[in-house]
């Protein structure tokens, strides 16, 4: 019961603020609404008992990536954007593509369980108080089975950092 209330609350907040984010004219408003969506998603993670992902989502997404976005919105002059039109002309194309994709995936979801042997294999999840400590489980998996992807991710972050600095710095010779 509490699970349902939590889920519907956070899901409603996430979908509503995501829809507002895509339609607002002001980019700063969009950024704040995206923060709301990400926090609501963090609530969904907590409802799924993924505590480490929950706290990572808040620290990294809301605290890191969104601050970066706000910085760039401040650096780039956006007041001209307020007078221009928000959408490109292909909004009907976009609506059609989204509608087609949505109907397609919905049909797959609804019919997957009717076909014998091809539906989602759903088992009853373990009760919440029987779960092992989430952070310990995650660390055990990350540093044993997924050690190589972990190291590759660190190299990726280094490359991204160098790339971002090179992209954003001023050319001295010009």
């Amino acid at each position, binding site marked *: 019961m509490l699970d*349902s209330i939590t*889920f519907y609350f956070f*899901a409603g907040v996430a*979908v509503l603020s*995501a829809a507002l*984010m*895509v339609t607002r004219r002001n*980019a700063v408003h969009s950024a704040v609404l*995206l923060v709301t*969506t*990400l926090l609501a*998603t963090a609530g*969904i993670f907590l*409802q*799924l*008992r*993924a505590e*480490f*992902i929950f706290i990572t*989502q808040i620290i*990294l*997404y809301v605290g890191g*990536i969104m601050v*970066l*976005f706000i*910085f*760039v919105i401040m650096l*780039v*002059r*956006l007041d001209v*954007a307020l007078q*221009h039109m*928000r959408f*490109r002309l*292909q*909004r009907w194309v*976009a*609506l059609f*593509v*989204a509608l087609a994709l*949505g109907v397609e995936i*919905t049909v797959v*979801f609804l019919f997957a369980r009717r076909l014998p042997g091809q539906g989602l294999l*759903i*088992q009853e*999840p373990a009760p919440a108080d029987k779960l092992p400590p*989430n952070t310990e489980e*995650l660390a*055990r*998996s*990350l540093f044993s*089975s*997924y050690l190589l992807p972990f190291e590759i*991710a660190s190299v*990726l*972050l280094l490359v*991204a950092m160098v790339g*971002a600095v090179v*992209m*954003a710095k001023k050319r001295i010779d010009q």
Partner: protein
Amino acid sequence: MISPAHYLFLSLALFLIGAIGVITRRNVIVVLMSIELILNAVNINLVAFSRIFGDVSGQVFALFIIADAAAEAAVGLGIIIAFFRNRETVFADEMDLLKW
């Protein structure tokens, strides 16, 4: 009881809103934000199935996706700053240097 389909449809809704944002918005910064929304929608699926199957691997992959999103945001915003310095615009339909 929240069934897996609930999480799937929540993730689908966020994904489609993000896709509409990527296709329709003119402001490149908002397009990047919509991409973050799409990555986030995928994370919901991964964590939900990790919980359903009692396997923590899905959460590990969600962590990797968050790291990827951070890298992508840093590089993408660097490109936007460099582009704005050259062309004084952030609108996707004015970025037509390679178009003829």
